[in-house]
């Protein structure tokens, strides 16, 4: 068991549905395996933990070749909302939690949640803008200190 992973620090930097879920799933899955985990939200990834935004995360329908939809079509009003609705109803059927519930659950597993200071300053947010599960707003230096001894995953 000497080569097992003991600790992961996962950075979420994108604010789309498909940008946020993989990092949340990896953090939650790490804790389920007994692996220590931290989540860091930077730039638009902060949407996942902002009170006013976390329940309004959308799928990107423009510039997303995986959607197999021409970007001009994806840019039509309402397309992102339709794609998001379709994906959310599929997720609901598979019992995948919505982002607010998932963030709360991940916090309950003992995973650390942090927001990036540079991004917070850039967007003009304060600690009050974030959900209570966000423990702190930290610098990149603090991040490396917390990530020490583990794997770092950027999403």
């Amino acid at each position, binding site marked *: 068991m000497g080569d097992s992973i003991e600790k992961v620090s996962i950075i979420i930097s994108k604010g789309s549905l498909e940008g946020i879920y993989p990092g949340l799933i990896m953090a939650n899955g790490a804790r*389920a395996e007994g692996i220590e985990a931290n989540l860091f939200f930077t730039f638009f990834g902060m949407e996942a933990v902002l009170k006013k935004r976390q329940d309004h995360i959308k799928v990107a329908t423009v510039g997303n070749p995986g959607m197999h939809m021409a970007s001009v079509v994806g840019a039509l009003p309402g397309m992102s909302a339709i794609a998001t609705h379709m994906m959310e109803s599929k997720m609901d059927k598979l019992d995948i939690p919505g982002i607010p519930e998932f963030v709360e659950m991940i916090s309950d*597993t003992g995973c650390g949640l942090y927001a990036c200071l540079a991004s917070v300053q850039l967007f003009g947010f304060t600690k009050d803008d974030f959900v209570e599960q966000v423990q702190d707003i930290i610098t990149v230096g603090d991040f490396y200190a917390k990530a020490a001894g583990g794997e770092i995953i950027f999403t």
Partner: protein
Amino acid sequence: MTTQTLAGVDVELNEEGFLVKPEQWTEGMAVELARKEGIDPLTDRHWQVVRFMRDEYFAKGTGPTVRVLGKTSGVTVKELYELFPKGPAKIAARIAGIPKPKGCI
């Protein structure tokens, strides 16, 4: 696959330490399996989860994930991790003598 003696019975464990035949499991084995995980003694709360895992496995063919446990076992996610710090679904399944639950969430 290894053969081990648990509570006086020779049983087979797979490479991840899960009982190969869940029907061989006894409560005495659970106590010994828990001790190997550093859980000693098994409290009533541990037993609630372990029994729930077995019931779900025999009813559905697979043990519940942490999320399902948190929603349906009567033990919150937070407490599940206090009871089984090394991964509630995985460790409780090992103690309950059932296969490792499948599922990403």
